[in-house]
Each structure stands twice: as C-alpha cells, then as structure tokens.
C-alpha cells in the first residue's frame, strides 16, 4: 500500500547526491546513501512490511533499530539468501534485493490472514490441548501443517559463497557502545594511555545523539570527539561491530559486518569477521531501548516507537506521517513531538500521566500542539495502515494511576483523532543483556521503572543510559569516570591533558533534566481487541491472562507457554512489558515476578561467521605423514584415520580397495612390502627411574628388559580396561623408545605426564613426544632381511646382530636410523625410524634397493588385514571396555609387580567366566561373507536379544582362502572348534562360522624368527 513519498527536502545524515538502487519483492526502488532499508522504504511510502507470525496481521516497522520485531526481510538470492533480517539495520547498498516475508501469495494480499478469524482457537498454548487424536500417531499428521506455518523466512539449501573470518584481539579497555557515554569513556581511557577498542554496532558513531537534528550542536560535539579518537594511535574504532556476548574472563565475542564494502570472496574479502576479544577492563555503554505501550491494535502499520519516528526524521529525513499522535508515559518522547512539529507534521500529544512538567506544557503550547493529559489509548483504527486513534479523553481519579487497563466501555467519554502515525513510548529499558550474560541478574529500579545491571565483575564498569542514567550530562560524566577507572584498572593512569567537553546544549529538549516516568503497563482490556505484548510471536494481553489463569506465572513458564520473547528480537520490546503485566495479574511487585535470562548472542549472528574459515577441508586439522606427498604422487589413495590422512591402498595393486588390498597382502606374505607407519605415537622416555616407570605403567615387566631389546606392552587405565598397546625398546641404560597406537598417542602422552607430574614426582623421568619428529616405516615379508642388506650395505643386519625383538641404531650416510625387528603382520619384519626430514629419502632408497626383490609399497587396508590373520588386536578390539582377559592377554599381567589398573582389573564382573573374549572366526559358507558388526549366536539359540558376541574385524584370508574375522564371544576360546551363527539382520543375512584360535597363520611364529 503506497502513499506519497515522505522524504524531507532538508536535513538527515544521508547523502542526497548518491542514489542507491534496490528492489523490494522484485520491484525496483531507490533510496539514498546512508539509508537503511527501512528508511528507504518509508521514504517511498511503503509502510506494510510483513505479516505477523500467527495471525498474519499486516505490520509496519515498530522501531529504527535492532529491536525490530515486525519488519523482517529475506535478502539476497541463491546461496546468498538470508531470511529474517531486520530492515531497520540493513544498510542500503546498491543492488540490494529484499523480499517481504510470511504472506501468501503476497504480503499485501495474504490469504493466511484468515487465521485471524479463528484467533480465539489459536490462543497461547492451544497446541498442547489438542492434536492428540484420534490415534496415537496423530501429531505426525498435523505436524507438517504446523511446521509450514511456523518460521518466518525461508532458508535455502545452497552453498554460501561468502567468506567469513575470525580474529583474536586484545585490549586494555573495551568500550561497548559509542553513544555519548561510550565516546566519553573512550576519550578518557584513550587519553590515559590505555589501548582502547571502541565497538559500535551502527555504521555511525553517536548512539542517542543520532536522534538529534543532524545540524544541531550534538553534531559538532560528535565530530570533535570522533576526530580526536581517530587521531589517537592507541584507540581502535570498530564500526558496524556488535558485541554478541560477554564470556568468562573478560572475553567478549563481537561480529564486525563488512557488507557495505561489497566484499568479493574470490579476492579473499570477508563479509563478516567474528572477533574474540580479551580485555583487561570493559566499559558497557550499550544504551537503552524504548518500550512500546500495550493497547488495543497497537500493532497496526504506522504505530511505532516515538524514538523511531524521531530517528527516521532527524537521521534519515523521513517523516513517517502527516498527522501524528504521540502517546507517552514519560518526558522523553516530547523531543520527538517537537521535532516532528518543526518539520510540519501535525502533532497531538496524549500523555497518560496525570500531570506534566510545566516547561514541556509551555513548549507544547508554543508550538500550538494539543496536549491531552491523563488519557489512555483505547483503540487504533485502520487495517493495513493507521487511520486514527480512540483516546479516553479523561480518566476518573480512581483509574488515573491504574495499571489494570480498562475497556472501551468503561472509559469516561472518548475522543477520536484522525492520524496516520502513532508514536508510542512506554519508557526506556537499559540494554542489560551483556552484563547479565555473566550471571549477574539485573535489578529493578522503581524510580525509572526499568531494570539496570545488578552488578559488574571486577574490572567491568557501566555508563550512561545502560545504567539507568537517561540524561545526556549523566552519560558524559559517567562515561568519563568509567573510562578513567577502566584505564586505571588496566594499569594506565596518565591524566587527561585537556578536559572533555563537559556540557552540550541541545536544540530541543536540552540535556534533559528528568525522565519522570509513570509506568502504565496496560492500557486496554477487553475480549476482542488485540493488545500486543510480543509483536513478532503475536502474543497478546489475552494470552498472558490465559497463562496466568492456568498457572504459567513464572517468567520462564510464561515465556515458554506463550512463546513471548522467543522470536528473532528475543523480547527486546516485549519482555519488560510482559513481566510487568504478569506481576500486575499476580498482584506482586515487579522484582518479585522474576527476570528473564539474557543469553548471547545479543543480536542473531550467522552460523557461518562463527565457523569462520574452519570449513570444508579445513574443518579440522589434517595430520599428514612426512611421506604424504610421495604417496599422492605414486598412485596412493588416502583415507581419514582420526585426524590423520593415511595411505589406504595403492593403485599399482588394484583400482578399488577391495582388489588392491589382496594384492598388497599377497606381496607381503610372499616377497616383501614397505608401509608407512609414521602416525604411530612415539615417546622418548629417559632417566634413572625410567625402567621403574615403565614397570609401573605396563602390565608386564619392563625393569629387566635388556639394552637393545624391544618388548610388546599393554597398559591399562586405573579402572582396569585396556588403554593402549605398543612396543617399548630399551636403547640404553636410561633411555627408552615407546610406541603407541595412532589413535591413543595423545591420551597416552598426557597420561604419562600426569603420572610423573602429579603422582610420582619422586621418579626421575622425562618424557617427550617424538611422533612428528620421526618418520616410521615397516619392511615386511620373507625377503625383508635381504632388502635391508641391499639398502644398508656395510651394516650387519643378520639374525645374530638383530634378532627377533631386537633393536640397533646405526648411521647410514650420516643419517641416524633406528631398526626394531618386530612384526604386526606375522612375517619377518623391521620397523625403521628416521628423522622426519629424511623420511622420503629413506623410503625411496628402500624401494629402489629392494626393486630386484619385487618390493612395493602397501597401505593401511592391507596392514589391517595382515594383522587380523596374525590375531593382533587393534582398533575395534581396543574399545575402552575390553580387559586384558577379554583380549586373551591375561598371561601378560605380571604377578611380581604392581601396575596401573591391577586392583580394579580384578573386580568380580571383569573376571567373570561368561564375559565375551577374543576369538578367531572362520566362515564356513563359501559364497557368503563375514561382516564386522555381526552378532554371534550358538546354533541352538533363538536369534534375538544380544547374542553371545559380535565380530570386530574381518578380512579375506589369501592363505586360507576364506573370510576370517576376530570377534568377542561368550566364554571365548573354550568354544574353539564349535560352530556359530553370524547374524546381520540389517542385510537379512545369517552365516555359519566356526570358532578358532585367533592366530590364523603361523601359530608357532616361525616366520618371525627366520
């Protein structure tokens, strides 16, 4: 519904020389540089900006700021689609595309407004009372309709092309808000020598001063302060930067918006930057938000906050109407009335209070505007736009101070005023959100009918309207004091050299002396008229009444039952009114009614901005072996293994993992292969007590391990479960080299450090992580020793010099190598460690030297399968539940010495004979396969319940030519030779198998000792 354009010819902080083109619902429009989407729309006469959530009532802009509940738009197209953005904070930039929301087929002609007709049925919490039948699954029938009606804007499943950055910042003093208080604080703290960060969510500095005329004295003051702040090297000003939340330890999260720069992601330019800022001291100067009044049909387009009308007028040169009624319960909105009148708007002031300050009365008279005192708004006329208001012309003395609200019928005679703009002011609510995030609840002040911060953490201060000081002088004074105190707290005491301009004569209203509010929380009662408390979620006084009747009277219950305060505005214009009305219904004072919990973020923030650059492949760090690039360059296919990227299989062996791993296995069993084990945890352990230390952490004995020998070890956690297995080699009297599994390396390292530093501080042992320092590879197969002889000529690698479980350290071409002869695969094998920088050199050297023997590299899949054939436990067997006994390793537990986990390992259930323990399983049905995750049963069992065990790891055995597996089975190897059933109902499979010893090949270990 469009009317004549409302842009004033003069004034405002807009650049009339720069037109900005944008589109609304596909229709091209234009505004001026400096406009928000809201001001541009209002200038174009567009007042219908959306439809409300439940009743689909036509709505206009209520505010000019972040508290906007009605005017939400979907911006952008494609991957840049962004729903629910408040038009009042969107900076108008060229090409902006905006869509109104929640109307079908359009916001102007919305068929869904039919819900208004059934409104009585849709009162608060109606869905709890119905949708239950007729059958149990009824909700699943109704839910899709509810879901489609819910939500305001629409998200799209397309990739966001924009880029977001995160940043860490530090400051001596962080000042949140650049209104008069914040600017004064910044000046004082900056002059005192502190490193200051001043964060302002708006694109302009000034805060409440921006409500004043752009050419008045406020502007001069603002420019002087701003220029001094810009000149200080120790002051950083962040515009368009919203403080999202206050976190413990003086940490504040902020988001800086850069859309106005039209950032190009292809050039690495970010759309938004999330800043984690740690400040020694913080000044909160976040200002206050104006409250609506609650009266019938207070949601009509054209009914807005008085300060919003003033902002559109003075900042954007937009008169939101030609005939305005300003209805108020406090002094502050008179400034709006006077400013509107000065710009040619016909103004009537309806003051709810019984008496008004003489100076204001006189000024109103001087501007020939009608001032009605002691009145109430009973109704607003008009549908898609305001047409007029009905006022109670006079109120009986009994009702004069009543907060109960009364119906149209009960009012002493009424008057109708034609108007197209209603400016309402129910008072101001300090923005106590941030200070409350830390858990300090706000407290209520009767004198200003508002909540103020209940306190501050050490090093945190408040100033200005946020503390309930609503005069300009107080804001400046408090700002200076807070700036000084915060700078001093952070260690900076240099006194200011010249005084901050202390006073400021403003054209209208002066530095207001008082606020003089008389809160009237509720104007109208009555069955039919809708008096809105929460505009976005369509919560009316009637809903509050119902909630009260049903007992949902606590703040939390009220909120959740009515959904009040749960919209995108998080109750910025509704919470206090609701609280006060509920207190009235309950007959308690406001502080006794409780407070809402304030939670971050202060305003909604893009999830992508919080994620920053930690997306896609960078979602989590990639740990790569030193041989990573070599693998990729030589036909290697990689696979994720926790944070590591490991070599899975090579294409020389096959095109798919299924074919490749078999070839690689065959190679190792018949000739020789080389594999990369650099990811294994490696820990250096040194000291005269190192042997004792190892003896304590491992279940088996390590004190008598000879120099030059390695031993397989298992360590438990205190509760007796297996923590990790690995091999520890004694390199010298006091020096050991421990390997761990890849997955547990970090946990084991921290555990060893924990024991040494908190429990066994008398042990003289040092541990250091070598995982990233050394590359590791294994040469395995019958021809492994031959390969070493070719690769390391002149070094004795014979069985005598390097026996099974032996270790030698040599230097080859000046490069240190550590060779440990042990085997995971079951073949003759050697682990070779070399400093990481030489990893590739050694690897290629081994492959080159071993070429005549047929050596090729093999990967993780084959490695995992080889060890299954050998019956080594790994991965899925070590699941933090299994004990030594479960894994068939009970014999390793020393009887001579204490070790970590010894006692709790012996708890009754951990020793129970019916526990599931490690077995080998071979498939009895050719043509079928075994699967990991199968549940095992005895053939006589009913196939239901939890069975007797499950399969952990499976491979095709090239030697046995059948599928084999490791698993856990009730009673374990007692059942060797017995037939079992492997059930896999997810695929409808059942396979016959047999329990065997887990060592499928070379049980005598002859190949290892060759």
């Amino acid at each position: 519904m469009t009317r004549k354009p409302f842009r004033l010819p003069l004034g405002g902080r807009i650049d009339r020389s720069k037109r900005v083109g944008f589109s609304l619902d596909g229709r091209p429009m234009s505004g001026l540089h400096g406009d928000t989407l809201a001001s541009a729309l209002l200038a174009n006469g567009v007042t219908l900006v959306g439809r409300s959530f439940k009743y689909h009532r036509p709505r206009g802009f209520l505010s000019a700021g972040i508290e906007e509940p009605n005017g939400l738009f979907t911006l952008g197209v494609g991957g840049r689609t962004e729903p629910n953005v408040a038009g009042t904070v969107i900076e108008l930039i060229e090409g902006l595309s905006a869509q109104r929301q929640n109307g079908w087929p359009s916001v102007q002609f919305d068929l869904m407004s039919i819900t208004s007709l059934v409104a009585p049925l849709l009162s608060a919490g109606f869905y709890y009372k119905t949708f239950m039948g007729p059958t149990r699954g009824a909700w699943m029938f109704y839910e899709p309709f509810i879901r489609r009606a819910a939500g305001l804007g629409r998200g799209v499943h397309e990739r966001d092309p924009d880029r977001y950055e995160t940043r860490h910042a530090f400051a001596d003093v962080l000042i949140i808000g650049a209104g008069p208080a914040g600017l004064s604080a910044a000046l004082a703290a900056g002059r005192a020598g502190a490193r200051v960060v001043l964060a302002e969510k708006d694109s302009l500095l000034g805060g409440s001063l921006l409500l004043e005329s752009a050419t008045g004295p406020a502007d001069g003051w603002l420019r002087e302060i701003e220029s001094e702040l810009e000149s200080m090297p120790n002051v950083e000003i962040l515009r368009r930067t919203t403080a999202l939340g206050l976190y413990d330890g003086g940490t504040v999260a902020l988001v800086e918006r850069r859309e106005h720069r039209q950032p190009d992601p292809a050039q690495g330019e970010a759309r938004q930057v999330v800043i984690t800022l740690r400040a020694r001291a913080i000044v909160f100067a976040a200002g206050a938000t104006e409250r609506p009044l609650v009266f019938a049909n207070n949601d009509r387009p054209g009914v807005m906050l008085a300060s919003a009308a003033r902002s559109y007028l003075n900042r954007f040169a937009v008169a939101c109407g030609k005939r305005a009624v300003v209805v108020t319960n406090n002094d502050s909105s008179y400034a709006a009335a006077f400013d509107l009148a000065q710009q040619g708007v016909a103004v009537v002031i309806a003051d709810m209070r019984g008496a008004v300050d003489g100076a204001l009365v006189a000024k109103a008279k001087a501007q020939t505007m009608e001032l009605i005192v002691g009145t109430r708004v009973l109704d607003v006329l008009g549908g898609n736009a305001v047409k007029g208001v009905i006022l109670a012309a006079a109120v009986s003395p009994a009702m004069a101070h009543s907060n109960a609200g009364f119906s149209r019928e009960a009012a002493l005679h009424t008057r109708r005023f034609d108007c197209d703009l209603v400016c309402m002011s129910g008072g101001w609510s300090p923005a106590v959100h941030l200070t409350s995030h830390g858990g300090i609840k706000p407290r209520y002040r009767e004198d200003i009918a508002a909540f103020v911060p209940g306190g501050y953490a050490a090093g945190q201060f408040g100033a200005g309207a946020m503390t309930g000081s609503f005069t300009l002088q107080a804001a400046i004074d408090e700002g200076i004091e807070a700036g000084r105190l915060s700078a001093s707290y952070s260690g900076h005491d240099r006194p200011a050299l010249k005084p901050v301009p202390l006073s400021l004569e403003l054209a209208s209203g002066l530095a207001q002396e008082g606020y003089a509010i008389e809160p009237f929380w509720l104007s109208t009662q009555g069955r039919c008229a809708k008096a809105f408390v929460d505009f976005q979620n369509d919560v009316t006084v009637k809903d509050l009444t119902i909630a009260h009747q049903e007992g949902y009277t606590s703040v939390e219950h009220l909120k959740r039952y009515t959904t009040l305060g749960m919209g995108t505005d998080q109750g910025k214009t509704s919470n206090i009114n609701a609280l006060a009305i509920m207190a009235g219904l309950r007959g308690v004072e406001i502080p006794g009614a409780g407070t809402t919990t304030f939670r971050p973020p202060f305003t909604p923030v893009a999830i992508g901005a919080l994620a920053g650059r930690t997306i896609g492949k960078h979602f989590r760090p990639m740990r790569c072996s030193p041989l990573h690039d070599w693998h990729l360059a030589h036909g290697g296919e990689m696979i994720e293994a926790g944070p590591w990227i490991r070599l899975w299989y090579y294409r020389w062996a096959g095109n798919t993992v299924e074919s490749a791993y078999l070839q690689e296995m065959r190679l190792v069993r018949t000739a020789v292969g080389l594999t990369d084990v650099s990811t294994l945890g490696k820990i250096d352990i040194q000291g005269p007590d190192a042997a004792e230390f190892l003896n304590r952490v491992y279940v088996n004995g390590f004190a008598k391990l000879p120099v030059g020998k390695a031993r397989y070890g298992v360590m438990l956690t205190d509760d007796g479960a297996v923590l990790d297995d690995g091999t520890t080699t004694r390199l010298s009297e006091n020096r050991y080299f421990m390997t761990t599994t890849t997955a547990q390396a970090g946990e084991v390292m921290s555990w060893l450090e924990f024991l040494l530093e908190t429990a066994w501080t008398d042990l003289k042992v040092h541990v250091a992580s070598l995982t990233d320092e050394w590359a590791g590879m294994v040469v395995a197969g019958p021809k492994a020793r031959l390969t070493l002889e070719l690769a390391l000529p002149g070094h004795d690698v014979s069985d005598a010099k390097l026996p099974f479980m032996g270790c030698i350290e040599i230097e080859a071409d000046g490069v240190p190598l550590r060779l440990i002869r042990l085997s995971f695969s079951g073949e003759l094998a050697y682990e070779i460690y070399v400093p990481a920088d030489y990893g590739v050199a050694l690897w290629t050297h081994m492959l080159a030297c071993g070429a005549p023997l047929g050596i090729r590299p093999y990967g993780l899949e084959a490695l995992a399968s080889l060890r299954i054939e050998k019956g080594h436990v790994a991965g899925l067997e070590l699941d933090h539940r299994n004990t030594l006994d479960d894994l068939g390793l009970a014999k390793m537990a020393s009887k001579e010495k204490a070790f970590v986990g010894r006692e709790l390992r012996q708890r009754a259930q951990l020793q129970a004979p019916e526990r599931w323990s490690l077995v080998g399983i071979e498939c009895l049905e050719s043509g079928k396969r075994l699967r990991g995750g199968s549940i095992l049963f005895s053939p006589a069992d009913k196939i239901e319940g939890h069975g007797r065990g499950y399969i952990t790891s499976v491979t095709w055995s090239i030697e046995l030519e059948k599928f084999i597996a490791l698993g856990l089975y009730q009673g374990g190897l007692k059942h060797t030779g017995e037939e079992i059933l492997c059930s896999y109902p997810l695929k409808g499979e059942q396979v016959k198998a047999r329990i065997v010893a887990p060592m499928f090949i070379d049980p005598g270990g002859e190949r290892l000792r060759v």
Partner: protein
Amino acid sequence: MRITCPVCGERDFSEFRYGGDATKQRPVHGTTDRKVWHDYVFLFDNPKGPHREFWQHVLGCRQWLVLDRNTATNVTSASLLARKAINK
C-alpha cells in the same frame, strides 16, 4: 575463561585440558585395597563452589597445573605447577 599458566602466562582455557579434582589422593602405587582404588577412580566430591583441580597446558608447555576455580562462578586463581603443588 582464562587460565594463568605459571610458565606461559595468561592464556585462553581452550589451550588446556581438564584433568579432574586435584584433591583426590592417588593411592600409593602398589596399594592393594580395592575400595581405596574404587573410591579414587569412581567417586567425586563434585562441589558447587571452590574446586582445586588439574589442568594440562596441552597447546603450550604441556605442564600439568593445579589451580583453584569456583565451579559456580568460573573465577579462577593463579595456578601452580602440579609437581610444586604436590610437594608443598
């Protein structure tokens, strides 16, 4: 939340790994009393208020520290190296 590491200075808590109640006395190695071990491993005071606890500076010096923190407010004290705190 910030933790002051005695080696590295004031750092963000996300550089550290929580290690549990530091007032729990680890049984002397070799203790055979299973109840003592059970209580040490499985039971917690879990106070709402002052708590003395272990943290490890895993993304820094890797030292284990002891510090006092109020679990109801997250106000933390200065920390000590664990081995120094134990020997006090």
